[in-house]
């Protein structure tokens, strides 16, 4: 695990009197077709072969042991080893292991020639922009797959007692939906927008650890495939929280859940690790902490949570795997373990996870608000402090998930207090948005609509969250649809609305194409109305006593459930508008986007489109923060022309440039 920055050393070959030229790659030019190398196809072959080898090995190791077959009759050791070897085969097939193995004999990294064309998106690429696009497509595939499962849930709940599924299939669908959505949401912004935009926003030519970044994506994609295997293996009856003792007792799909979360968790750790280091060390000269875009602040806070909270989940998952394979008893009370141990470890990750999902959404909308209000961001420092405050406090609230179980009742007030405390920095971030909107002449473009929709939805999700932090309310509505509605308002109403706003906002930069604005507005209004139609009734049925994860309910709740289900189907249809918009404007009738369609001051918009491989021809010198909207004569945000050499020469004359951000 050598920490290799992936830096390309200077060649020392002088060219003219300017500097050094990076010569071409040492790899010989080849006319070999792109499809003959390592790509998604070889990754799939590697995964299948790996699964077969692992499964065979598991049967060799454990078939003779008693109690190796779980509730499904499957040999859990074989399933787990199959999935683990499958992931290794996947990584080997895509080429992620080439360099780690070459390092064993001391080889230096060989960077392939920058590739053009669509095949590069199916390969192991260390270009942060390619990785960002890979993430974006995979996140949408994740989202739409889990969304189809949501449709299945709402179909079942159309009637109180007539069934489309049996209870076992229903709970498997619920668990698969929740787990996939959580996995997707944890990387929904960090993956696509964080990887693509952060280097551009901080004036860097690359990320700190490009191979780590690429590996994070291929772990993420592998996690999608692993969790999909849960359904053919019988699903898991625990929902996305995976509570013991059901975890220990359930069918082979639980192995997919544990391995899948572990694989996704490793991807999350790698992504956060790379982003945090990049933001700390690869800011351009002059990009002081006071000038860092607020979206980058949100990425830094999220990266801190990803790197420090997720390892606990991976450890907890390992213990679960050991319980199911090596017959340990971490979560088996009658053998000295405790099912509450899982709850503690899971929620120590799980509650920061909530903010891993929320903070990037806030970062996106805070970045967009000044652009569409033509006002400076209100309370920039408060926003940054609020994000860091939320990140810090999120480590001290996990026990509120155990108010009903596994906690000394005397401890409840403490965790009620810490949970309520976290609403303060969250409120800071919210107020920053409202302050920016105050007396603004708002441009109601599509990204701005999504930003406003996010604020509306998150307000409902946040206020109900404050209710839920109070022990009496929590005890009353625990395990009901009220809780379910609350977190859908925060995650889907918050993060997903912000994500779609971000997609509409940054697509012109990322693809050079402009999504159609008229269809974008139709998408927003249908998504906004039907989202609320789907989830607001669930607060009501929750208060009336309908429990989560149960496929039958009282007959008097049918009207509200039918309203919700109808809303869900129409909400699903609203995404077809988005897909149609993408296909039309990207494939059928592509239109070149203006260079800076929103007239943003952001550094990412100062680069050419498509963004060159190294982003900036010269490393820029940042002169100002990007929020000076409304100034009659705004100072330039960055010097992109003369670059670092000129700035170094002039640094003594103008110390305000703050050349060393460290």
């Amino acid at each position, binding site marked *: *695990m*050598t*920490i*290799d*920055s992936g*830096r*390309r*050393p*200077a*060649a020392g070959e002088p*060219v003219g009197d300017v*500097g*050094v*030229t*990076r*010569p*071409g790659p*040492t790899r010989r030019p080849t006319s070999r077709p792109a499809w003959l190398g390592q790509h998604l196809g070889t990754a799939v072959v590697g995964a299948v072969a790996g699964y077969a080898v692992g499964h065979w090995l598991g049967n060799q190791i454990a078939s003779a042991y008693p109690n190796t077959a779980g509730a499904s009759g499957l040999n859990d050791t074989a399933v787990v080893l199959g999935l683990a070897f499958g992931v290794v085969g996947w990584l080997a097939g895509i080429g992620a292991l080439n360099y780690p193995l070459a*390092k*064993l004999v*001391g080889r*230096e*990294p*060989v*960077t*392939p020639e920058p590739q053009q064309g669509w095949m590069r998106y199916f390969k192991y690429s260390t270009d942060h922009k390619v990785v960002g696009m890979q993430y974006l497509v995979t996140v949408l595939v994740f989202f739409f797959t889990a969304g189809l499962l949501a449709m299945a849930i709402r179909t079942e709940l159309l009637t109180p007692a007539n069934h489309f599924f049996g209870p076992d299939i229903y709970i498997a669908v619920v668990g698969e939906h929740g787990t996939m959505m959580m996995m997707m949401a944890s990387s929904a912004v960090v993956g696509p927008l964080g990887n693509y935009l952060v280097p551009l926003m901080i004036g860097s030519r690359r990320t*700190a650890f490009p191979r780590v970044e690429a590996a994070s994506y291929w772990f993420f994609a592998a996690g999608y495939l692993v969790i999909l295997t849960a359904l053919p293996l019988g699903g898991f009856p625990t929902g996305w929280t995976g509570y013991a003792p059901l975890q220990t007792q359930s069918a082979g799909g639980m192995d997919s859940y544990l391995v899948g979360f572990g694989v996704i968790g490793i991807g999350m750790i790698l992504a956060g*690790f790379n982003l*945090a*280091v990049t933001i*700390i*060390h690869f800011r351009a000269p002059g990009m002081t902490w006071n000038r860092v875009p607020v979206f980058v602040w949100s990425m830094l806070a999220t990266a801190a949570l990803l790197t*420090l*909270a997720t*390892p*606990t989940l*991976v*450890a*907890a998952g*390992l*213990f679960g795997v*050991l319980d199911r394979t*090596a*017959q*340990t*008893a*971490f979560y088996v*009370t009658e*053998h*000295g373990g*405790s099912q509450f*141990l899982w709850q503690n*470890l899971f929620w*120590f990750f799980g509650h920061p996870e909530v903010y891993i999902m929320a903070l990037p959404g806030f970062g996106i909308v805070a970045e967009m608000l000044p652009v569409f209000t033509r006002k400076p961001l209100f309370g920039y420092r408060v926003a940054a402090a609020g994000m860091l405050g939320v990140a810090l406090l999120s480590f001290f609230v996990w026990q509120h998930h155990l108010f009903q179980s596994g906690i000394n009742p005397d401890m409840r007030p403490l965790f009620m207090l810490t949970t309520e405390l976290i609403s303060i920095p969250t409120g800071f971030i919210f107020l920053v948005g409202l302050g920016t909107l105050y007396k603004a002449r708002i441009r109601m473009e599509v990204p701005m609509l999504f930003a406003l929709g996010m604020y509306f939805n998150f307000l409902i999700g946040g206020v109900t969250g404050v209710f839920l932090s109070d022990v009496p309310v929590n005890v009353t509505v625990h395990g009901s649809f009220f809780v379910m509605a609350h977190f859908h308002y925060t995650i889907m109403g918050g993060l997903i609305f912000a994500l779609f706003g971000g997609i509409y906002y940054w697509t012109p930069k990322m693809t050079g194409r402009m999504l159609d604005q008229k269809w974008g507005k139709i998408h927003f209004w249908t998504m906004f109305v039907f989202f609320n139609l789907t989830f607001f009734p669930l607060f009501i049925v929750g208060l009336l006593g309908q429990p989560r994860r149960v496929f039958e309910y009282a007959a008097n709740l049918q009207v509200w459930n039918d309203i919700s289900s109808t809303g869900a189907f129409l909400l699903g249809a609203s995404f077809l508008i988005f897909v149609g918009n993408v296909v039309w404007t990207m494939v059928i009738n592509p239109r070149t986007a203006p260079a800076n369609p929103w007239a943003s001051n952001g550094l990412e918009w100062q680069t050419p489109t498509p963004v060159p491989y*190294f982003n900036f*021809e010269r*490393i820029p010198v940042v002169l100002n923060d990007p929020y000076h909207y409304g100034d009659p004569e705004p100072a330039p945000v960055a010097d992109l022309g003369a*670059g*670092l050499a000129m700035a*170094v020469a002039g640094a003594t004359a103008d110390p305000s440039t703050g050349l060393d951000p460290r």
Partner: protein
Amino acid sequence: MSAINPAPGIPGLIESPEEAEYELRAAEGSVWTGTRLAIGIVAFAFAGLAFAYFYLRSANNDQSWRPHGVTAPTDIGTSIVALTIAAGALALLGNVRLRRGLRADWQVAGWTVVATGLLVVALQIWELTRLRFFPGSSGYASCFIGWAAMNIALVLGATYWIETLLARGLRLRRALVEEGATPAALSAERLFRANAEGCTLFWGFTAAVAAFFWLLFYIF
């Protein structure tokens, strides 16, 4: 073929010396911060194990935390922790010698650390075959199995890091002799030194983890 990759990148990108130096400093800083962050990541994973240990010990469900006071084989466990601490100390000593320019000393110390790391992994696996309890017989037994699995991964990772550094160091040295002190070689050398510092710190952390859990599993 040269041992040092002479700057793969974009043909035609002209990089000023200031830019090259700026990126090199950023890369060195990234190794510094990355090492600390990697230690944080591993620390939180092991904190999960420590939490499990104390949680199950204090709960003592069904009086099954540690029936009959069984422990894992103390002689093997003590050998493991002693070897891990020795490897950490040797990595530190080697790095001190490297700072003084005594590269051969660092190589000797480093390869010894690699051998010790592999021995630790072998001993940890062997210990698993010598347990006097079933993995699911108690909370203690479960935590011990979890510890063994995580420790194997940790020591293997640390060993991989120093082995790759040693291999790179050999190639780098050969390149410096054959090609002289080119800018590429000097840049690679600086990054190599930063990595060596980070690797030493990581081995020190590995030794501290081993000592902490040795106290938990064999003493208290």
